């Protein structure tokens, strides 16, 4: 009884005040770190781009690989993680009637641990002791404190994740027989994936620490790489899930439409959670020590992840068409004109979706063994993930920021800032179009990734890359303009924008929507299935790597 009273009180407060102030502070703090990391990461990216184009020689105290490590760590480990956690905490707070006090505490503890971790990691990189790139796999060895920092980072993330689980469990207890709200469902899926995906890398880091300190002499390189990619790949799909959640939940509302199908969205979450972790092998197609049979099996595992993406594409375009037709669109494609292109909260995620069409196609291509041979470790791959991450994920995140930040700070997105946002989106997209296009092309011509500028003794082939690399620099310059605009907008929305009410957009189901099946709530079942699939995929190759291991490698410092 007491719980019920408390709960209705909580939602009343929510209705009146719009947001819970304490919860908002958590999300805004995470976002602040996220966008600072974003800005710094992009500056480093520009340095790399200019260097690769042969326009900028980095000084001796700022090594290319040090910059690259910073770029990768800041953008893929710090920016995306802090943004995702902050966003989903806000989602829990909004859809579940506020975070529990205990959960709020866990979020802050998690944040503190993450900050400690990032300080360790950043310091070692700045000191030039950790130019091992964000993948940090052996036999390259950084200062041991770099890995200690990673441990803190992981512990901090876990604290937040478990806070999320506790909040969901509490809600379910108080709302027996109800479905978790769709956005909270996405968040739960992403958190489950994050936790299980991070187990492998935690084991890896715990193997590396004694080796980096010199307490153990050698390390199993193949095993570390495999454990890393079980995480690295999962991380990518966690952001994807984060981005997709806003497409399903927020975008239809913003364009004045409705949710196409609640069940379909939940099915996408389930498939991504169950099938994801095993995709890690597609990053190791060229690795030795994995038999052909296993690699063959993993082509299927990897391609199966494309399936939910195709479902999402279908669902989104169906929503757009329906909404457009309701607004009176005629003809086959008339609905396209009815979409609110001038609204940045729509434009940014829309370009994110469009960007995912070539990005996904490239991904499907490069997961095939033969095609992967052509592009492996070339600039093509860098082009690929600047499309998936740099366009799809980043623009979706920006799209979220345009409404979530004003919602939390009780401010509004003014038409002027909206216009600036549109400009930002266009500049960023053009920049990525140039940069990623050039990277794809020059990769096909053989230019390697993770290599500072060199002409290989004026070799003709290498010289032939230069014109394309110039486009890379042009793109990078546009991107840095986009980054500056974005960071300005973020902090403007946080501190300067005029006061007012901004809604947290959550699409409603169609009137004739069918009932969401009960089995979607069987999380134990999905987790059990996920573990079964992970076991199927990993036990055989990992035992092989351990039992038939080569002598192992001492640490190397290659820079």
């Amino acid at each position, binding site marked *: 009884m007491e719980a019920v009273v408390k709960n209705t009180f909580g939602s009343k407060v929510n209705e009146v005040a719009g947001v819970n102030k304490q919860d908002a502070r958590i999300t805004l703090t995470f976002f602040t770190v996220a966008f600072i990391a974003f800005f710094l990461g992009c500056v480093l990216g520009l340095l790399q781009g200019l260097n690769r184009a042969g326009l900028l020689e980095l000084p001796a105290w700022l090594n290319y690989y040090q910059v690259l490590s910073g770029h990768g760590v800041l953008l893929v480990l710090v920016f995306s993680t802090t943004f995702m956690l902050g966003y989903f905490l806000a989602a829990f707070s909004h859809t579940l009637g506020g975070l529990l006090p205990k959960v709020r505490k866990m979020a802050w503890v998690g944040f503190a641990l993450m900050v400690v971790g990032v300080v360790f990691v950043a310091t070692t990189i700045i000191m030039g002791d950790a130019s091992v790139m964000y993948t940090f796999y052996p036999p390259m060895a950084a200062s041991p404190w770099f890995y200690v920092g990673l441990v803190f980072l992981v512990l901090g993330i876990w604290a937040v994740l478990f806070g999320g689980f506790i909040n969901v469990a509490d809600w379910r207890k108080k709302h027996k*027989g109800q479905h978790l709200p769709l956005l909270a469902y996405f968040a739960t899926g992403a958190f489950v994936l994050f936790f299980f995906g991070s187990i492998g890398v935690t084991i890896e880091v715990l193997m590396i620490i004694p080796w980096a300190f010199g307490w153990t002499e050698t390390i199993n390189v193949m095993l570390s790489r495999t454990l890393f990619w079980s995480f690295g790949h999962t991380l990518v799909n966690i952001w994807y899930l984060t981005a997709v959640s806003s497409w399903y939940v927020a975008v239809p509302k913003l364009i004045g439409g409705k949710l196409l199908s609640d069940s379909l969205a939940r099915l996408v979450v389930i498939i991504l959670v169950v099938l994801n972790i095993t995709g890690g092998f597609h990053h190791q197609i060229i690795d030795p020590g994995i038999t052909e049979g296993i690699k063959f099996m993993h082509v299927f595992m990897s391609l199966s992840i494309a399936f939910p993406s195709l479902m999402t594409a279908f669902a989104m375009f169906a929503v757009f068409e329906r909404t457009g037709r309701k607004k009176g669109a005629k003809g086959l494609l008339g609905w396209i004109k009815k979409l609110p292109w001038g609204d940045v909260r729509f434009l940014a995620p829309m370009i994110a979706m469009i960007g995912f069409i070539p990005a996904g196609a490239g991904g499907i291509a490069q997961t095939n063994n033969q095609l992967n041979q052509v592009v492996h470790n070339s600039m093509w791959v860098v082009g690929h993930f600047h499309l998936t991450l740099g366009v799809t994920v980043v623009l979706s995140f920006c799209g979220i920021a345009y409404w979530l930040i004003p919602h939390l700070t009780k401010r509004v997105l003014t038409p002027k800032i909206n216009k600036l946002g549109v400009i930002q989106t266009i500049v960023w997209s053009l920049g990525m179009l140039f940069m990623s296009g050039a990277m794809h092309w020059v990769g096909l011509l053989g230019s390697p990734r993770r290599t500072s500028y060199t002409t290989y003794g004026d070799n003709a082939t290498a010289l032939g890359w230069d014109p394309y690399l110039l486009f890379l620099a042009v793109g990078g310059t546009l991107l840095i303009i986009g980054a500056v605009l974005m960071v300005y907008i973020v902090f403007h929305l946080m501190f300067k924008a005029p006061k007012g009410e901004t809604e947290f957009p959550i699409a409603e189901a169609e009137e004739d929507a069918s009932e969401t099946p009960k089995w979607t709530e069987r999380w134990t079942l999905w987790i059990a299935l996920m573990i079964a699939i992970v*076991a199927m995929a990993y*036990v055989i190759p*990992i035992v*092989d790597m351990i039992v038939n291991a080569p002598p192992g490698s001492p640490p190397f410092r290659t820079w």
Partner: protein
Amino acid sequence: MKQAIYGLVLYIFLMLPPVVTLAESVMAIHMHMQMPLFVVAGFLMAPFFQKRFPNFFAKWNSNGVPGIILFMIIVLYWLLPRTMDEALTIPAVEIFKFISLPFLAGIPLRDSWKKLGSLGKNIIYVSLSVLFGVMAWLYIASPTQLCNNYLIVEQKTLGWGFVFLALAIMIYFIQTLFIDKSEYE
């Protein structure tokens, strides 16, 4: 009834010659994928038989104990290295595998599980995880080749597979002790 059809499709799929060859070419896949999938096929087909022969199940498996004992016997039988070897070399044993796992393990498991009380379920969780632990120890620690058809490396892999299975069942079991599902659903 949809489930029963899925079960039948899975059953037939598993018996297609190329699928059989592929599944049996690796020891861990043979024991940890093919065999459980046969049980799953039976599990899915169970409603068909339960509807067809309600009296049979009511009479012979009224409290679920006979069914679960049959299930355990069949599982135990197929855990032995010798039986796996024979399935590969003697066609009759292979056919027995195709029949016993779905019909004598999968169907009784489904019929019994709902009828068992929590004590019965707990006994099954614990004995399965202990059993799998022992199998893990056997397959990992054995210095000699246990199957004529599979190498020692494959044996060790299988052993580690058992470690995971045992752990997974144990974790699930402990979870059931602490989390009351009815509070959530």
